[in-house]
């Protein structure tokens, strides 16, 4: 907990320095022909006439209270702007997570238990291809095939909402999850193969445990451990991937908005989004650490004895 907090503070300092290094926010919100008096007034209003230490305290307070200020471009409170967009992004992340879970685990276990057979080769080939193809391109190709050529699915947007808009979710969901499905399948396969090789599995088999029980009770559970260590990294990958997918499919999410606000240098929006993402990533890391202890008794025991 303490470490996560320290990381968060460090991160806020980096974000503060980065956004201030881009120039005085007061100059950014004013038109280019502003008089020195106007600039001075704007500085006093925002607080950039004070020392950096004071500014940082204000910055930290605003971040903690979700008071992100007004967007320079839209002239609206940032919180109102990003609220709906976070929801849109989370919906897409949720459908992707479901797709990842229902495909990667069966595929990984299948490939590991059928090592060297035809199915294993197919799974590995498809996984290697999916890891090599850049997400933005996969999205465009899917769009060209299923929207333009076949006309089955819409080319972009989130739809009117409700159950009827499910068609809008298909292509973005596949594109978002493809890379993670491939990585997870490969990792699960290699991790299961390693566990299948170990002594306790041989012992379990020798004492007559059924093959199903060996796979699911002994091997699968142990193979999950290395996967959990990679989960924290994957959260970052997932966010990066969703930025790209939202741009490709015109998804009204927070990632597409981030790209737009980079183009317009809308720093209140930029720092709000980066701050929120940082907090979510840190929280996710914390959850992974805690889950790790639940799955692996060795860690739980090591942690409780000094």
């Amino acid at each position, binding site marked *: 907990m303490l*470490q996560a907090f*320290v*990381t968060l503070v*460090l*991160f806020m300092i980096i974000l503060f320095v*980065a*956004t201030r*290094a*881009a120039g005085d926010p007061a100059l950014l919100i004013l038109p280019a022909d502003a008089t020195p008096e106007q600039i001075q007034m704007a500085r006093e209003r925002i607080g950039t006439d004070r020392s950096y230490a004071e500014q940082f305290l204000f910055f930290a307070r605003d971040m903690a209270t979700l008071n992100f200020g007004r967007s320079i471009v839209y002239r609206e409170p940032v919180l109102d702007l990003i609220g709906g967009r976070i929801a849109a992004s989370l919906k897409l992340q949720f459908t992707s997570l479901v797709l990842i879970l229902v495909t990667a685990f069966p595929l990984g276990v299948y490939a590991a238990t059928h090592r060297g057979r035809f199915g294993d080769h197919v799974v590995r080939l498809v996984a*290697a*291809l999916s*890891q*090599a*193809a*850049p*997400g*933005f*391109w996969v999205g*465009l*190709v899917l*769009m*060209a095939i299923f929207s*333009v050529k076949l006309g089955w699915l819409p080319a972009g947007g989130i739809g009117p909402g409700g159950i009827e808009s499910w068609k809008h979710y298909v292509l973005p969901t596949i594109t978002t999850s493809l890379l993670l499905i491939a990585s997870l399948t490969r*990792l699960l396969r*290699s*991790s299961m193969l*390693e566990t299948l090789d170990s002594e306790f599995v041989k012992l379990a088999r020798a004492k007559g445990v059924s093959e199903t029980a060996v796979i699911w009770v002994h091997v699968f559970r142990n193979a999950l451990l*290395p996967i959990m*260590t990679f989960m*924290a*990294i994957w*959260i*970052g*990958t997932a*966010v*990066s991937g969703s*930025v*790209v997918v939202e*741009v*490709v499919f015109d998804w009204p999410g927070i990632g597409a908005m*981030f*790209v737009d606000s*980079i*183009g317009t*240098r809308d*720093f209140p929006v*930029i720092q709000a*989004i*980066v701050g929120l*993402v*940082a907090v979510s*990533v*840190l929280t*996710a*890391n914390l959850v992974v650490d805690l889950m*790790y202890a639940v799955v692996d008794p060795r860690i739980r025991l090591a942690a409780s004895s000094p």
Partner: protein
Amino acid sequence: MTIEMQPATTLEQPVPQRVLVPRWLAWQNLRRLPLLPLLVVALFVFISIFGEWLTPRPFNEQSLRLRFLPPAWLEGGNIQYLLGTDNLGRDVLSRIIVGAQASFIVAIAALAFGSAMGSLIGLASGYFGGRLDAFIMRAADGMMSFPLVLAALLLVAVIGPGVHTVVIATSLILWARFARLIRSEVLSVRERDFVKLSRIAGSSNIRIMLVHILPNVLNSVVVLLTLQLGFVIIVEATLSFLGAGVPPPTPTWGQMVAGGRTYIETAWWISLFPGLAIAAVVLSFNLLGDWLRDHLDPKLRQL
């Protein structure tokens, strides 16, 4: 969180001097050398260096008459424009050939920078241990889990787009990956007898790290370098696609895919072929990396 190796047994076997060339160039290993990926990689390096002299057409030649020409094998195609032309009548194939250079330069620079920094930091972290180690590994974890695209875009907003921005952003992640790996290797190497003997003989920390430990972890660096090449190329292409990479008029593959996005309904070839080029090169580097890892350093299979 990385799985660490057990310290070596106290009964020291003769130190196997891990020289790269003889063992992995042995015939039984070469037999299963991934030839096709090697060819693709060689072609990629070749056109990255000599691309501008190899193009069938000048890569920036525009022609309003020849806009949206389909690939040569389709109806209306022109054999002089093998993969068709884009919205400004530029030859897609020529631009793909010239565009390789941007990926190549960024990949080399980011990997050189990131791996050097990461290896040195990992070396110090593993060797000295203690609080320094804990702090560095915490920072590395934080770096690795933060979304790279977000960090890179933030950097673009602050210092502007360009090769240097892409290189810095990519190195931010790369150093952490290298530091983590090298550190876990150093933890086992530093317990070996030759390190202890060297310390007794009065070697300085710097000398022990650079002369005795570093050569023993170099294999892992080489493997990781190859495995990360594909990653760096995808990152460069993604940033180019988002308009945060190397700015026009220099063509890059990501930029070309982005440029064809508007015309995906009619002129799909503008986006398709540059993307295929990225996928082919990345796949080849990944396969080569896998092969190299299996032959140099099988214990890294989890990477």
